[in-house]
C-alpha cells in the first residue's frame, strides 16, 4: 500500500508539473534565505566566541602603591566571582613589553627619563563569566577600589557588537518565523490548487468508498517530497554561494585567523526535516479545509 501511495504521489507530481515546480521553488527560496541566516549566525557566533576567548580586563594602578597593598589588592581581585587568574605586570615589565612590540621604534624610548607606564593587573575571566554584563560588573567593582586608577577592557566594542548581534538574532528568529509561515501558506495554496484541479477525481474516490486516509496520504507524501526536494535545492544553492564567499573571505580579512564553516550535517538535517514539515503542513491545512467542504 505504501508503494501505491508513493507511486500515486509521484504521478500527481508529474501531472501537475507547473504547480509543483512553483511550490518547489517557493520552498527552495525560503530554505535558502532561512539557511543563509542560520549560516550567518553560526559563523558570527563562532567569531565572537573566538574573540571572547582572549577577553581580559586591565586594571592600571595609581603610582607609588606599596608592595604589601598590591599583594592585598591582588588577593581581593583573585577572590572576585568570575576571575580566573590575576597577573601583576610591573611598570618596568610593561615598558619592556612595549619596547619588544615596537622593535623598529624602540630607540624612541631611549631618551625617557622616567617610566610613564603604571603598574597593572592583567585579569583573565573564567569561561563561564565571559558574558558582557559580567565583565562590565567586574570592571566597575575593580574601578571602585582606591588603588586603581583606571580599568580598561580593550574590547569594549565587543559589547556593542554583542548587542547588535543580539538584535540580529532576534530579527533572524522573526524572519525565520515569517518565512516558515509564508512557505506554509504558499505550499498550502499551491496544493489547494492541485486539489481543486483534481476535485472530480477526489469526488469519484469518495463515491467508490475511498477513506479519507486513502485520499490524503498521497498528498501528504507529495508535500513531504516537495519539502525534502525544496530543502535540497535551497541548501545546494547556499553551498555553492558559501564556497564562493568563503574563498574570498579567507583570502582577505580573516586570512589564517578563522575558518568559516558551512552548516553541520546535524543542522542541514534539521533544515531538511523542517522543510518537510512545511510541505506536510501545507498539504494538511489545504486538505483539511477541502475535505470538510
Amino acid at each position, binding site marked *: 500500500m505504501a508503494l501505491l501511495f508513493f507511486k500515486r504521489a509521484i504521478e500527481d507530481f508529474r501531472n501537475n508539473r507547473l504547480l509543483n515546480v512553483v511550490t518547489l521553488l517557493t520552498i527552495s527560496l525560503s530554505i535558502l534565505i532561512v539557511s543563509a541566516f542560520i549560516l550567518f549566525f553560526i559563523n558570527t557566533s563562532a567569531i565572537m566566541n573566538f574573540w571572547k576567548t582572549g577577553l581580559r580586563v586591565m586594571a592600571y594602578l595609581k603610582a607609588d602603591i606599596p608592595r604589601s597593598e598590591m599583594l592585598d589588592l591582588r588577593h581581593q581581585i583573585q577572590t572576585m566571582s568570575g576571575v580566573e587568574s590575576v597577573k601583576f605586570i610591573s611598570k618596568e615589565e610593561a615598558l619592556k613589553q612595549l619596547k619588544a612590540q615596537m622593535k623598529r621604534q624602540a630607540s624612541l624610548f631611549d631618551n625617557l627619563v622616567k617610566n610613564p607606564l603604571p603598574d597593572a593587573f592583567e585579569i583573565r575571566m573564567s569561561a563561564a563569566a565571559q558574558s558582557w554584563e559580567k565583565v562590565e560588573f567586574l570592571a566597575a567593582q575593580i574601578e571602585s577600589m582606591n588603588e586603581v586608577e583606571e580599568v580598561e577592557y580593550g574590547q569594549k566594542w565587543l559589547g556593542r557588537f554583542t548587542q547588535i548581534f543580539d538584535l540580529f538574532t532576534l530579527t533572524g528568529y522573526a524572519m525565520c518565523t515569517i518565512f516558515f509561515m509564508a512557505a506554509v501558506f504558499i505550499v498550502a495554496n499551491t496544493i489547494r490548487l492541485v486539489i481543486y484541479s483534481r476535485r472530480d477525481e477526489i469526488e469519484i474516490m469518495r463515491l467508490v468508498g475511498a*477513506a479519507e486516509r486513502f485520499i490524503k496520504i498521497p498528498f501528504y507524501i507529495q508535500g513531504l517530497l516537495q519539502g525534502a526536494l525544496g530543502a535540497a535545492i535551497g541548501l545546494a544553492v547556499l553551498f555553492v554561494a558559501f564556497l564562493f564567499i568563503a574563498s574570498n573571505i579567507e583570502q582577505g580579512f580573516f586570512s589564517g585567523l578563522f575558518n568559516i564553516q558551512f552548516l553541520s550535517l546535524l543542522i542541514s538535517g534539521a533544515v531538511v526535516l523542517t522543510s518537510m514539515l512545511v510541505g506536510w503542513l501545507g498539504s494538511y491545512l489545504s486538505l483539511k479545509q477541502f475535505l470538510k467542504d
Partner: protein
Amino acid sequence: MIDADDKSSVIRMFHVHHNYGTQKALIDITLDIFKNDFVFITGPSGAGKTTLLKLLYLAEAVTEGQVLIDGMNLSRIPRKRVPFLRRKFGIIFQDYKLIANRSVFDNVSLVLEAAGKKRRLIQKKVRSVLRLVGMEDRQTALPLSLSGGEQQRVAVARAIVGDPKIILADEPTGSLDDDSAGIVMDLLRGVHIRGTTVIIATHDKDLIRKTGGRVLYLKEGRLDASSFIEKDYGTSIF
C-alpha cells in the same frame, strides 16, 4: 444464485423527506427494497429519482425520516464509517464519472485499492471484470479515447469489481445508443442473476418494458401508485 423468494430487506425508507433549501425534493417516501431485487425508479425529470439514490449512498442526508441499509440506520453512521457504507454499493452514473488521466485498469482497480485489497488480488479481479464487460483489450486506454458505450462498460466494471451488495445506476443508458444500452443492461441483468440487488433510476419506459423488474414511480417527489399505468411498463408495480 440467490433464492428468488428471499425477501429480506436490504434498503428500508420510513417517511423520508428531503429538501433543497425551501424546495421539497422528496416527500414522505416509505419503501422496502429486497435482497436480489431488480428495481426501476422512474418518473419525469425533477421527480426526485437521483435525489433518492443520493440519499442511499449519503451524497445527501435526509431532512426527515429514516433510511436503513442492511440494517444500518444512515442517520447514525459517523462520518468515518461512510466509506464503508459506500463499499456496499456499486454506483453507475449517466456521465460515467471516470478519472480522465487514469487508464481503464486504474479506474477499475481504484475500488479495490481503496478497500485495501492485496495487489495480486486486484490484478486478478480487475482483469476478470474487464473480460466480463468486454474491455479486456482496452485496459491501458484512457477513458477519453473510448466511446460512450465503452466508458459506461468500464463504469459497470468499476461498480461490480468490489462485489457490492447493491448496484445503484443513475440513468445508466441515458447517453448511449440502443446497442450500447442493450449491452449495459445485459451486464446489469447478469450481475442481478449472480445475486446482487440492482436499482436503476431512469425515465426510459422502453428500457423498463424491455428489461422487466419492479417499478417505483415518483411524481413531484412522492411515490405515486395512482398515476402508474401498468400497461405502459408491462411489469409489476411496487
